[in-house]
Every structure is written in C-alpha cells, then in structure tokens.
C-alpha cells in the first residue's frame, strides 16, 4: 500500500487549483500578446483615415462608420487592392511555378541521390547541402550581372510580347522564378531526402523486380508516397518566395514587374503623412495568400511533419 499521496488538492476558484489557474492566466496572456498586433492591424484597417488618431489603435474604431454616411469604412481595403493589384498578380505569376518547380525538382534530386545508388552521389549531395549555406548577400551582385548582362532573357521576351497575356517585363519574373527555384532546391532536396531514407529499400527492389524502370518507380511508387512531404515543401517554399523582398529588389528593381512585397513598401506613404489604415489593410491583404495556403494544405502538412 502506498502512503498518502501529497496534500489534499487545494481547491480554489471554480474548483481549479491555484497553479492551474496561474497556468491558464499565463496562456491567456500569451494569446493576447501574440494576437494583439494582428488585431491592431485589423482594427486600424477598418478605421476611416479621417477619424484615425493613432491612439489606442487596438480598440475598435470609436467612430466605426464613415462620418455622415452610416457605412463601414472599407475605403482602405479598396485602396489596398488598387495599390497592390499589379503586385499581387506578379507575385502569383512568380510564386506558383517557383514553388512547384523547386518542390518537384527537389523531390527528383532526392530520389536520384537517395533511392537510386550510383558512384559519386555523396559528392553531388554535399554540393546540394553546401547550397543551403550560401548567404544571400554573396549572390546579389553576381545575380544582377547574370540576369542583366549574361543571359539575354529580355531579348527573348521582346518578340514574345506580341502574344496575348505576355508582356516584355515578364522576363524579370521568369528570372525570379529560376532564381528562387535554384535557391530553394537544396533545402527541398534535403527535406525529401529525409523522407525517402525512411522508405523501405525492399519496396523499391520489389518494384525493380516487377519490371519498373527508374522513371516508373519515381512516378508510380515514390511520387504518390511523397504527397505529405510535398505539402510541407509547398507551404515552406510558398511562404519563402511570397515574402521575399531581397531577390525581387535585386532582379526586378522597379517597374511593372514589381511584386507585392515591393509595392507594400511604398503604399500609403506620401508627403502629407502615413495613411496607417491603408498600410494595415495592404499588409493584411498581402499576407492573405500565405494564410490560405496554410489552411488548404494544413492537414497534409501535419501528416508530412509527423511522417
């Protein structure tokens, strides 16, 4: 028989013990701490610029309606959409192919470096790993030189501009797509490799004996088993590329091809002052696609992380 187990439970408010109440209080405090910037942004964004005072920005607008009209102030959202529209389109043109290419190529590279064995693969893999550690700063100047002086991508796009939906400035987006794909490839390969190492060798051997070629093994066995990892890689790459400003500034620099992060920098800033409601609405609008990606791929993401 065991001896008495500790003191009788100290009952406090609502039947919970004091330590537990303390824990809840801390958790609630942290929730508020993390959510308050977003809440502040949201409240600011629905405040009319005329009534925005800058005091207590986290409170709901004291004058929630546009003066004398009886309507919510959605002017900032309209302004954000107008201001960022081109950037949103450009970012989408950039981020979707770049994410898919880096994921797909990363998966193929990992398959070739992990599941198939051949002489010298370790050396190649080391190069991939080294790619992760190349600092962005080190490649900025070479990158500009490369896309502006070495590769005549612009010249390729000039005749293509006659086609519908294609504009000359799209060459900058293509350059960005290739750059992001290349830069994302090492980390994607690393993630897929970790996943492929856990797949059974015997299963791949069984497929070999079943008459499948290397390409078939990838397409029919490995690719379907990579879906959870694709969710992880897609979310990661989408967020990275969507939020990137450095490569965009380096390669796009300015003009029609500017992506959403570039446009966000300048929106709502003028000589008459900063339009905070507009800036907040624009920030939330720019963040929306990454949020959507998390929601859509969330359950697969969890599977991939747990796998």
């Amino acid at each position, binding site marked *: 028989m065991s001896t008495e187990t500790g003191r009788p439970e100290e009952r406090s408010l609502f039947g919970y013990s004091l330590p537990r109440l303390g824990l809840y209080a801390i958790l609630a405090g942290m929730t508020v701490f993390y959510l308050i910037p977003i809440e502040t942004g949201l409240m600011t964004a629905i405040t009319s610029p005329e009534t925005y005072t800058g005091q207590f920005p986290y409170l709901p607008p004291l004058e929630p309606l546009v003066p004398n009209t009886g309507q919510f102030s959605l002017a900032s959202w309209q302004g954000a959409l107008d201001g960022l529209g081109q950037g949103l389109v450009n970012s989408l043109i950039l981020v979707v192919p770049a994410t898919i290419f880096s994921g797909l190529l990363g998966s193929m590279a990992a398959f070739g470096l992990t599941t198939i064995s051949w002489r010298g693969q370790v050396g190649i893999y080391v190069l991939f790993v080294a790619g992760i550690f190349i600092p962005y700063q080190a490649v900025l100047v070479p990158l500009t030189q490369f896309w502006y002086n070495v590769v005549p991508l612009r010249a390729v796009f000039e005749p293509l501009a006659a086609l519908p939906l294609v504009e000359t400035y799209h060459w900058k987006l293509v350059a960005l797509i290739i750059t992001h794909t290349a830069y994302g490839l090492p980390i994607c390969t690393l993630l897929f490799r970790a996943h492929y190492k856990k797949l059974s060798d015997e299963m791949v*051997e*069984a*497929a*070999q*004996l*079943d*008459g499948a070629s290397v390409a078939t093994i990838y397409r029919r066995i490995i690719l379907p088993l990579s879906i959870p990892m694709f969710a992880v890689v897609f979310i990661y790459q989408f967020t990275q590329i969507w939020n990137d400003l450095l490569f965009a500034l380096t390669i796009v620099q300015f003009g029609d091809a500017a992506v959403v992060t570039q446009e966000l920098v300048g929106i709502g800033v003028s000589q008459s002052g900063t339009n905070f409601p507009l800036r907040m609405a624009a920030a939330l609008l720019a963040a929306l696609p990454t949020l959507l990606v998390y929601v859509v791929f969330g359950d697969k993401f969890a599977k991939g992380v747990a796998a």
Partner: protein
Amino acid sequence: MAALTLDNITKVFTEDDGNEIRAVDEVSVDIEDGEFLVLVGPSGCGKSTTLRMIAGLETITSGEIRLAGGRINEKPPAERDIAMVFQSYALYPHMTVRENMSFGLEESTEMAEDAISEMVADTAELMEIEELLDRKPSDLSGGQQQRVALGRAIVRAPEAFLMDEPLSNLDAKLRATMRTELQRIQDDLDVTTVYVTHDQTEAMTMGDRIAILDDGILQQVGTPLECYHTPNNRFVAGFIGDPSMNFFEMDVDDDTLVVDRFAYPLKPAQQEAIAGKSRVVFGIRPEDIRIKEPGGISDNYQFEVTIDVVEPRGDENTVHLTFDRNVSDPITFTATVSGLRDVSAGDAVVATFPPDSIHLFDTETGVALHNRTFESEDATKQVL
C-alpha cells in the same frame, strides 16, 4: 519455369577502409526445373547475398548465374523474369491489393487490362484473398500481407521464385500453416524456387534439397535427410537438427576414444576411418541416445549418467545429462526421451550410445570422417 544454375559465384564487398569481405565464396548449385531449394545458414552466412545476386539486386564479383541455360549476370532485375518475396513483404503502401498485384504485370508485360485483372482474380482465388482486393496493405494483418506478397509474386508466373525469409514475421502457429501451404502452392505451380531461411526446421520440412552455407562457403547440398544423417562436416551436423547433435572432443587411444570419465570403444570400420588421427570429434544425435533405469550395464556402449535438467516438450522430453555433476566443468549432453517417461533432475540413469549411430569428425577441419550407418541396406535406401 526453368533450371537455375549458380556456377562458382562469389561476392566480395569492399569496405571504406579497403578491407575486402568475401560474403559469398565460390558457391555452385544446380537447381532443377521445378525444384524447391532451401538456402539455410546462420545470419551473416551469405545466403541473402546469394539470393540478391540471383535477383540482380547485387552485382556478382565472379562466377556465373544461368537461368534456363542463359547467362543472366548482366541483366537488370527487371529483365530476369524472376519474382521475389521479401521478409518485410515490401508491398506498395499507397496501392490496393489489386493494384499491388497488377503492378508487375503492367510493368513487365504488354498484357491488356482485362487479361491482367483476370490473372489477378485467379491468383487471388488461389491465395484466398479475393475479399481483400480493394483494401490497402495497412488494413491487413501480417498473415494477410504475407499472402498478398506471395500472390504478387505468383501472378507474374515467373521463371523462378526467390523467397527471403518470407515467414519469419509471422507467429509460430501461422508460420507452420503457411509452411505447408507454401509447399502445396509450389508443388501445384511447379516453379523453380530458392528459399532463404535461418530456420533449420523450415529447411528440413520444406525443401526438396537444402544448401547449407556458412561464412560464405557452401557446406553441403542434399536432400534434408541426407544432410541430417550424412553431414559433410561438423557444422552441418550441428546446424541441422533440433536439439543439436552432441559433440565430444576425444583422444584416440588405440581402438577406444577417451575423454575424462568417458571411454568409447570403436568398431573396426570406424577405427579405419580415423586412422592416423590422435584426436577426433565424436558426435551423436540426442534421439539416438537411449536412456534406461540404473544398473545392469551389459556392454561398453553404456554409461552411468545423471540427469541435470529436464525440458518437457509434451511429445518428448529433452534431458540434459552429465557424466558427473560434481566436477566444476562437467561434460554435458542432451538426449530426447518419450514425453510420457517420468524423468526428473538428479536421477541416476544409464545412457546407451549405439555404435551404429555415431559420427566422427576431424578436430581441425570438421570434415566428417565417419557417419552413422543403418542396420540394413534397405533402411539406408529408405532414408536417403
């Protein structure tokens, strides 16, 4: 279906530090068309490497593998027309049972979809897995996965089956059932089969012939009873049979073998077999040792011994015996007696080592110098 020939095949692995390991050393076996050959040996003996070389999953350092007379050394696994069942079953987890079974036919043949689904249905019926066809491997029990893995190999109707410890992940009861079933299926299909196992019971019960490997070297190829009764060497004698054969290392003193308290007279033929040796290894199987009540020793083949431990098995008891319990390092050996016999530890009994049943091996090389004999020629023929 075709004959499979292993001709002096050797596999040398080179480690990172340049060390060479001979995993398989000049193994030669002729496997007849439709034969069930069991490759057996302790873990690390090279049996799986041999199988993987036949499958094409491992390169062959030297030697030649021929299937239906044609050299297959350089053929990739996909072109060898061989099906393999893996220890882990290696099913494709994202495919249903039906898709798992169709995959090989889709990839290796030009068959139409209808013909494939017909063959899958036929095989599923043979394996009694029709109701599982639309399920995924993760929804199946170990035994069911095992059947699917076999079905996936059978549906291909290959020239040869390779099986790498396919039953070792099953529980003991199911393993015994599958053993019989596998034999029945192999018999029906009459496909050349190479079966790898470390379990001598599986080897004894399933194989038409067994090939015993140790340390990459082929020790013996023969029918199970040949290997059991006329082992080539001490390793085979000790590996085949459970409980294992008893071995005593003894000095040769004229016509008698001697060690400590134990002296055993040899017959003329046995003396001849060990001529010129000063030490030999004496071997006798536990079931050949006869136990009777103490007293009344009538010849030199009987010895007074004490029972050390009794392991009841129901049908028979394995008794551990010793010539003298009181010395610090006693010579012990095992004998099997009927399960109904009342024996208990500490009993003094008389053990008989019948002279016909003894084996003699070279101390150094382990080569069999003399194997047991049978009372009549007929008995020999019957057994071997």
